[in-house]
């Protein structure tokens, strides 16, 4: 709801994102999504914090974090800048991708706008390539209903191979389901199996050569297939964080 204490004055200054788990069981959850789909609203509702929200794209420019408790477990939620893709074309995209990639979250919620599902799915698919611990949150279901847009969430979940939850974050609807899904994924009660994206024959061939080699050096949370593809695409900003690991 507009600027808040946390987002103005001294609070506007960037605090270094340092995630502190209270116990080893605490789970880190990233919230990704296109700009202006309600990530900050979901973040605020879940954590009780007051990040600046507003109906315009590009208002969150840094990662913000907050905590919530669901059942017996603590979750640390990280609100990352909204992006249309994870191709690192801009600073926001780089911040977003780097967090999903190197921030090592236990799960990633990708928020999608129910009224613009097709465009939002692009980011969902791109994120699914990076990590399999994904929960898709189709937000703004109330807006969609108002515009008479129907979405078959079950079918979407089937097609993507990951849990899909419908929410109307502004009125708080569906957030319990979302928290339950996050809980289940992090507790490994649900194991998402994202569909594999098949590329052209030649590209697949090249990936097949490189992937086994990448796998040897990679920690388990990253998808070796995607890393192989990115290495072939080798954008320079991507190589940089590798060197710090």
């Amino acid at each position, binding site marked *: *709801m*507009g*600027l*808040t*204490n946390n987002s*103005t*004055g001294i609070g*506007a*200054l*960037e605090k270094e994102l340092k995630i502190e788990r209270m116990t080893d069981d605490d789970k880190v959850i990233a919230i990704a999504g296109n*700009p*202006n789909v309600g990530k900050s609203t979901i973040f605020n509702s879940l954590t009780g914090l*007051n990040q*600046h929200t*507003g*109906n*315009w*794209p*590009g*208002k969150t*420019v*840094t990662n913000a974090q907050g905590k919530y408790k669901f059942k017996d477990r603590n979750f640390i939620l990280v609100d990352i800048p909204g992006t249309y893709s994870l*191709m690192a074309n801009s*600073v*926001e995209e780089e911040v977003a991708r780097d967090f999903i990639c190197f921030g090592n979250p236990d799960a990633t919620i990708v928020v999608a706008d129910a*009224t613009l*599902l*097709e465009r939002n*799915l*692009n980011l969902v*698919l791109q994120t699914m390539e990076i990590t399999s611990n994904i929960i898709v949150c189709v937000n703004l279901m109330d807006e969609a209903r108002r515009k*008479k*847009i*129907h*979405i078959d969430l079950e079918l979407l979940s089937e097609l*993507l191979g990951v849990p899909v939850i419908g929410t109307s974050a*502004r009125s708080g609807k569906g957030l319990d389901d979302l928290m339950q899904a996050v809980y289940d994924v992090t507790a490994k009660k649900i194991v998402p199996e994202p569909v594999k*994206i*098949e*590329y*052209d024959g030649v*590209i697949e*061939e*090249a*990936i097949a*050569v*490189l992937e086994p*080699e*990448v796998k040897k*050096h990679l*920690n388990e949370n*990253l998808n070796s297939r995607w890393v192989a*593809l990115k290495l*072939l*695409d*080798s954008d320079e900003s991507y*190589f940089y964080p*590798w*060197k710090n*690991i």
Partner: protein
Amino acid sequence: MNLNILSNDEFLSKFEEAKGILEENGITRDILRDKIVSCIYKIAEKSAKQVVSIENKKYNETDRKIDRILTSKIYGIPVMIALLGVVFWITITGANYPSELIATGLFWIEDRLTDLFNLLEAPKWLHGVMVTGIYRTLAWVVSVMLPPMAIFFPLFTLLEDLGYLPRVAFNLDNFFKKACCHGKQALTMCMGFGCNAAGVIGCRIIDSPRERMIAILTNNFVPCNGRFPTLIAIITMFFAGIVAGPFKSLISALILVAFIVFGVVMTLLVSKILSKTILRGLPSSFTLELPPYRKPQIGRIIVRSIFDRTLFVLGRAVCIAAPAGLIIWVLANVQVNGLNLLTHFANFLDPFAYLIGMDGIILMAFILGFPANEIVIPIIIMSYLSTGSLIEFENLSQLYEVLVSNGWTWLTAVCVMLFTLLHFPCGTTCWTIRKETQSWKWTVLSFLIPTVTGIICCFIVANTARLLGLA
């Protein structure tokens, strides 16, 4: 991932082999990217088709109709200015009555406090510091600042929640392009209305370093939360009085709109000058999404903007004004060479302040207001009150009398407003700029640019008016 992967021979040979396969088939990096993207898009399209069913294909029609007016070439800007005017009009009209009420209430309490001090036979100086010094000033600050903020902030948040800000950026894009800077600067400018420090952080949405720097340097040309109340208070006191009756608040609103538009024009002008001199370059292109209009949640807007913004700004004003009140009281009561320190200080600043249409006290208030702009008005009132012209409080118009009896004219009011709009950023904003630019040079520049602009504008206005014999 292992640190040495990039120098691992086995890995590198496989890497070269894989790259070779792509090259043999004529797949360059650009083509590879294209293929990756188009593949993902195809899957997205296919899946969306399967799961989404749209009953009414024209579901966007209303939004488009509204956009055709709000972002039209002819009506876009007039509608924008009119909206701004309506917001200010509601603020000023609505603020009048509660202001009176709060003032009456708070000054009734002051009388009771005085009774209490008399009853306890407290020393006179204690009553001076606590009641006529600190309490009285705080009472003025609260009754002048609270009502306009409590109305203005929710209204502004409402526009933001509806999705109007990107339309503003869209309307202004052409102007910003002409000023050789980034269209998204309109968005960071809008954030500046809330808080300049937040606006400066918001400049990160601008990718080009040159344009981001321009946006940071010029963000302070729009008045933030802390400065709006000063503008509104002065306008209500000095200009709304010219016309009586129902047009009173309309005139005030128009004057305020004129000042904001002037601030925007200065933003564009300074941006243009910067991009022709020290930050030369061409504007870069970008895409701007016009989000759908969304039904705002009125209740939550009101609660949040009152708790988060209004009380926050007011709290800051009160917290800083109270100790400042003490210091000023001491300054006003310590005599050196027959004059108190405050007068010495004000006299020292007076000649220069006169040149830019103000007086030493006002300039001192601006300087002392560096930590937070909210306290400029409180300091001015406090200083005047402490130097003798004590007035019993009955209603708000007496604040006007305090100012007039200290030599304020309409010209003083105009110059104070101009200088409020155009002067150095507050301490927090400067610190944020230092953090964002990682450079003291740019920070100093961001301090100097608005200050010098302000001094020049005030100088021209003050001396032109004096030459023409208008004041």
